[in-house]
């Protein structure tokens, strides 16, 4: 039976440290928000394909959430799942820890550079179509801890964000309002645009995060 000795733990640690340092180098500017659906607003309302309407209706009423709660906001997220604020009336009571089964990635709390590598990996593991919700001031811009040496100043440095929910922490009602805005966005999306966006994201990912280390 092999026992992993101390030297190989050092290797593990230094490899992870290198990953984090290289992520910091690559994340100097925030990624642009995917909001091109706002421009094509008028066109969409006029010419929506029937299959798109059905698909979108199905998607927005059965969102599977994947919540990573690095910090405090996760408790307001969980409070939204209780009977008092009841997220189940919208159809979203599924909240699984696995990214492979999720549609929406809710980042609730402060993101540090050490955790950012793991969050990016989780985002890449989610299948398309996927959306990202940044919940709380720390996920939007670093919040109270923006000047700190180890905090990512906003999660849009490492992944494109669809909805920003401000608050510290946002009340569960605020979280529900943010999710309703995401519903609106899903309702207006089209499969043709999704393919275009998917290609755009893939090209961006490939430029910034070449496959091979995931």
């Amino acid at each position, binding site marked *: 039976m092999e026992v992993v000795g*101390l030297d190989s733990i*050092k290797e593990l*640690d*230094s490899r*992870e*440290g*290198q990953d*984090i*340092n290289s992520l910091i180098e690559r994340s100097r500017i925030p990624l642009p928000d995917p909001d091109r659906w706002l421009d094509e607003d008028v066109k969409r309302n006029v010419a929506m394909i029937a299959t798109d309407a059905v698909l979108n209706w199905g998607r927005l009423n059965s969102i599977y959430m994947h919540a990573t709660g690095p910090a405090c906001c996760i408790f307001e997220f969980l409070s939204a799942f209780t009977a008092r604020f009841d997220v189940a009336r919208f159809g979203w009571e599924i909240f699984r820890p696995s990214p492979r089964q999720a549609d929406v990635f809710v980042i609730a709390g402060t993101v540090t*550079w*050490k955790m950012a590598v793991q969050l990016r990996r989780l985002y890449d593991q989610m299948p398309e179509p996927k959306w990202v919700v940044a919940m709380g001031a720390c996920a939007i811009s670093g919040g109270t801890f923006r000047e700190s*040496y*180890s905090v990512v100043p906003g999660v849009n440095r490492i992944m494109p964000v669809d909805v920003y929910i401000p608050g510290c922490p946002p009340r569960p009602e605020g979280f529900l309002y943010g999710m309703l805005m995401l519903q609106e966005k899903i309702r207006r999306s089209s499969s043709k645009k999704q393919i275009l966006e998917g290609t755009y994201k893939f090209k961006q990912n490939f430029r910034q995060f070449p496959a091979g280390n995931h």
Partner: protein
Amino acid sequence: MTVALKSEQTASQIAAAFPGADVKADGPAVVVAPDMVNKVCAFLKSAPGLEFDYLQNLTSTDYLDYFEVVYHLTSLKHNHSMVLKTRCFDRNNAEVASVTGVWRGADFQEREVYDLMGIKFTGHPNLKRILLWEGFPGHPLRRDYL
């Protein structure tokens, strides 16, 4: 009620046990030399009448001329407490003897001091960064880290 022991009395007890050592009382704290810390702590843990069996807190401060490592000790048996300090004057090569052999609770706290302040603890079983990652440039809690 936990009684904070008078530092002069404790300092004289330590000086009696380690003749010729650099021990003095500075306000409420007893200051010893960095390389003797583990021996002094072993004495404080076992000496009858003192018996400091609980390490309350282990931290460090950066006064620009020197680093100061502070130990807050408590005795659950006698319900008294004391403050022990040690000072390192070499900024680039600060080394203090580790007390993990005396109290296991010092393990993570010493690693944190090494991580954030850069003070090495000789004799620590696993001294590596705990809160930040390997390859992080510098030690953030120093006053000259920007």
